[in-house]
């Protein structure tokens, strides 16, 4: 295994520094994320009032919904964008974007399921219900697992990129279904509350909610940038390892002659 330090001394100039996945921008972003998370927790757990019907259980709202939206829309959306980009341009950049987004989407979806279940216990009296939105979210979770399974199924980067792009694209089709499911099937799950004109949300709650949304979006972006850069650097290391390997491979011939 070539470490990043060795690669750097190998002396090929690039604009990327190889000793960290951060940059000024991401560090600032990181500090921001931490601060925002602290504030968000304060807002969600302490400052905002309990709800009339749900009591303190409503506090999961500020966790659950942003997670669902960041994972489902942002994550899967970028997965779809990356997949289309790859199929169109055939460059590794898009593949890595899709891969990073897919991985984070998997994580966020898992957390959505978890927070949703935890919320469901006090509110619906059950952890799980075969409600369309819940089920389709579980399906999305499995689709994302399938996406990852494909990524581990082959070591050939091109084959993997092509096939997982197709899978990513097809998996993304589940998200509109999740969105529409509450309207089409009328299960247990809330229909859209994200209506600015909705008067049922009191001012502090509304603010907390929007703040949570922003926080989790920024968190997602921050994680994505890092995940992507890790993948990108891995790719570059592999690229340099390839140059190295080509040299070695050529030397194979010299030895035998």
């Amino acid at each position, binding site marked *: 295994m070539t470490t990043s330090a060795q690669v750097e001394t190998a002396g090929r100039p690039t604009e990327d520094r190889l000793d960290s996945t951060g940059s000024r921008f991401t560090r600032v972003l990181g500090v921001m994320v931490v601060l925002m998370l602290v504030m968000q927790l304060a807002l969600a757990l302490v400052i905002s009032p309990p709800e009339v019907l749900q009591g303190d259980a409503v506090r999961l709202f500020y966790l659950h919904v942003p997670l669902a939206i960041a994972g489902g829309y942002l994550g899967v959306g970028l997965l779809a964008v990356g997949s289309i980009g790859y*199929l169109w341009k055939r460059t590794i950049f898009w593949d890595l974007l899709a891969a990073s987004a897919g991985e984070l989407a998997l994580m966020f979806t898992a957390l959505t399921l978890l927070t949703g279940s935890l919320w469901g216990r006090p509110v619906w009296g059950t952890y799980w219900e075969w409600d369309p939105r819940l*089920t*389709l979210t579980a*399906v999305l979770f*499995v*689709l994302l*697992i*399938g996406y990852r*399974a*494909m990524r581990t*199924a*082959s070591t*050939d980067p*091109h*084959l993997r990129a*092509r*096939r997982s*792009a*197709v*899978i990513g*694209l*097809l*998996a993304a*089709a589940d998200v509109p*279904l999740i969105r529409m499911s509450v309207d089409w099937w009328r299960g247990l799950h809330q229909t859209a509350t994200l209506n600015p004109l909705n008067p049922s949300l009191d001012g502090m709650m509304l603010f907390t909610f929007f703040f949570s949304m922003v926080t989790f979006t920024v968190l997602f972006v921050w994680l994505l940038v890092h995940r992507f850069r890790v993948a990108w650097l891995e790719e570059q290391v592999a690229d340099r390892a390839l140059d190295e390997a080509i040299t070695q491979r050529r030397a194979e011939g010299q030895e035998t002659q």
Partner: protein
Amino acid sequence: MWRDALLVAGKDLRIEARSKIALNQIAPFALVVLLLFAFALDPDRGFLQEATPGLFWIAVLLSTLLVVQRSYAVESADGGRDALRLTGLDPAGVFLGKAAAVFVVLAMLEVGLGVGVRLMYDTSLRGWPVLLVATVAATTGLVAAGTMYGALAAGLRVRETLLPLLFLPVVAPVMIGGTRAFAAALDGSSGEAWRWCGLLITFAVAYVALGMLLFEPLLEDS
């Protein structure tokens, strides 16, 4: 494209006619699934009748999996999995051809299964036009999705296990749609049944289109 599709479909059906896998093995398998699940899910007839559409579609789904698996197994049985790529046939044609062959096999299977269900669970076939439309649409969707995911898994050493994993969640909507459409039709509420048919047709059209578009990169790769 149509010529290529015909060629591929003809080849696949000929192989099927030779080996008679669908008849001798997959059809009995589907029946076994019906029976077995009836066992597992409480042998209480009253409930079973309600669950009949679900069981029918589960049996069809698992059979589709086997038919698709077989359809790609014949491509790489002799070690080389390059044949279809080497022929230089039109990818959309290859997709349509393979899907058509799978469809034919599956349609025959469904007829047999339908008769089986009819006899075993004593279901009446009210509202058959909507049943027919729902069946054709759902089958088309299953077949198109199956053919695509079959190609996605083909050639990987892990294909036997990867295919079900990829395929089953994707066709969940077909399962729901098919089950609900059947249930509604058998209940006599054909209006609702037609609405579910709409979903099934949308799915089928979407997947056929996607397949024709996306099959190229799948055949392309090495």
